[in-house]
């Protein structure tokens, strides 16, 4: 990849080039840890919504756990849809 292709200008924070290369290469080699990391990041958005909806009955930990459980359930649904539409892959 050429340096000119780096989306430094489009990102809110300026990533060091080495970090960007590390991320892209790791995404290709071992996508699972990065996917889990992104899942946790997404949960940062979900958990406050869960807590707000519970009317204060749930602690912050519970809200994060429930948010994560919801995302796992959603992931499972997506996975099962993939199995239904591309069964030969499994």
């Amino acid at each position, binding site marked *: 990849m050429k340096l000119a292709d780096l989306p430094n200008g489009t990102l809110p924070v300026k990533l060091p080039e080495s970090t960007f290369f590390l991320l892209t290469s790791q995404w290709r080699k071992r996508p699972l840890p990065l996917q889990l990391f992104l899942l946790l990041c997404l949960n940062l958005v979900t958990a406050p919504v869960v807590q707000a909806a519970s009317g204060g009955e749930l602690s912050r930990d*519970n809200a994060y756990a429930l948010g994560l459980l919801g995302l796992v359930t959603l992931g499972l649904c997506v996975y*099962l849809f993939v199995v239904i539409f591309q069964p030969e892959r499994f």
Partner: protein
Amino acid sequence: MDSANSDSPRSRRQPGGPRASRKHTPKVNTKGLYQKALWQAFVKLDPRVELKNPVMFVVWLGTIITALMTINPNLFGPTPGDNLRVFNGLITVVLFLTVVFANFAEAVAEGRGKAQADALRSTKSETTARKVMPDGSVQSVSSTDLRRGDRIRVVAGDIIPADGEVLEGVASVDESAITGESAPVLKEPGSDVASSVTGGTRIRSDELLIRVTSDPGKGFIDRMIALVEGAERAKTPNEIALTVLLAVLTLIFLIVVATLPTIAYYVVGSSVSVALLISLLVALIPTTIGALLSAIGIAGMDRVAQFNVIATSGRAVEACGDIGTLVLDKTGTITLGNRLAEEFIPVNGHSLEEMARVALAASVFDQTPEGRSIVRLTEEQGAKVDFDTSKAEGIEFSAKTRMSGTHLPDGGEVRKGAVDAIKGFVRSRGGQLTPELDTAFERVSRLGGTPLAVCQDRELYGVIYLKDIVKPGIRERFDQLRRMGVRTVMLTGDNQITASVIAEEAGVDDFIAEATPEDKIEVIQSEQAQGKLVAMTGDGTNDAPALAQADVGVAMNSGTQAAKEAANMVDLDSDPTKLIDIVTIGKQLLITRGALTTFSIANDIAKYFAIIPAMFATAGIGSLNVMGLASAQSAVLSALIYNALIIPALIPLALTGVKFRPLTANELLQRNILIYGLGGVVIPFIAIKLIDLVVAAVGLA
């Protein structure tokens, strides 16, 4: 097989004794199988492996969540109940065991496949081959360095290093390593049945020049090894369809269970424990069939291999179960194949002695079993050779002339052969035909025998009755096939009358007389056009197109390389009747899968009645607790324990297959719905109640 020649003498190697009584020669070593499988069951907990099985992956994820809830029971919010940590811990253990049992079932089946593959592999060992170089010199190379097209020389005592086709030489080969038959087989070039050799077999006498027909690791045995080991096991169409069904059911239950707390909160006004929801989900999804699905498939391949048949794909084995039409050769498959002379019928006013003398003269050079049986019968009649055999010349049978005979030293010509061919011969020599000949021809044909006319120059002497015996028990097998909805079509080079008599006696549904190789393809294509799957056997090069056209083509190991390449199965015993057994194995595979799916889904009813009343005890639906289970917790645990234990309990059934019964599709459906459907509803009610009594007695919940 050469059609005109299809009923000509041919030495087919028949396995010794009934098949069931023979042991499979490459013995399968199952020592330590279960220990290895147990270890593999834990190795398979790797999420990348679990992902391949959607149902068990859901259980695996559920186990992790309940394990987290064991550490912190209030992880997902405050949960009512006592001893939640112990209860969640027990659920985790049972769910974990469910996953391990499922992995164990698959590992046992794979282990048996691997043992089978090892046994097959033991027939192949690295040997040194004498490679013939283009300049004619001989070079010693390792058998693994041989490539397709190489020429090798093997001498008595050598192990043949690769699959190949004989180019030169005549030798006897001991194929017991792969077939279990100790009698050596004669191999010679240019012959349909004896020109191909298999790697791993041993040459007993003389020497052969062989052209290698497969690259290392690409031979039949290698393909079979890869298949039974599961390395190349692609899912079959039926497995794919069932996987989709299981994924749909799992998705539906996941959505139902995930949305249940909202409704429960609205109706009952209390929240439901996530551990209970996971228990309900696992109890509802079809874990039994999900756990046993791949084991059933692998065990099916294994059973075919035990039958000494090499299948090149799981798809072929499964297709056997859906076969609608069987195309069978008469000789060797329906009849015993070794036709013997039974009677002489003289015509034209000739005496029996005169006819016996001419028949002897015509058969004196004939070394086929039929020819030898004619000589024996003539000797019983007191006939003697009255010419100098060293000055006479034998005329061999050919598919074109359809007759054989002898040139006598005095210039005379004696012939025996198909009645039409002999009529032509006599006419060409200016002789007269007689209606007596047609009467004798019809009489023999009506008895199901093959009539052979005998003549000397322009004079007809009579008809030899060659008796062909229908294999004992073949009629019952065709009756079984008919009940299963399989149509049988017999192909023969014989005349119309003989063919119809044999067809009647054997009980085949249809026959084609005086068949040519093209007829075979036509029959297959017309049956396929009606939407049926067709199976056939063959061994000759001219069978190859038909074998490729058929949905299940079984080539004989004694057949040519072309036939073996075109077929999707190779029978190492070269026993054409085995096609009927292979169909049975395929049907058994499909029936087992269907029966266990029915059982698995029918189990849901009892589990539902165990868990739902426990889950909503506060909603006043206690009357749904029809089993009178001790407590809510014991009800959930009992249902899950049953769910886990039923998997190892059904492993033997998955591996051996449901006992096969030759019934119609409707009868089978009724029977299986009764046993596995009704049984699947009733058994869990009893089992869950019993487990609940034990759980309550032990004080687990």
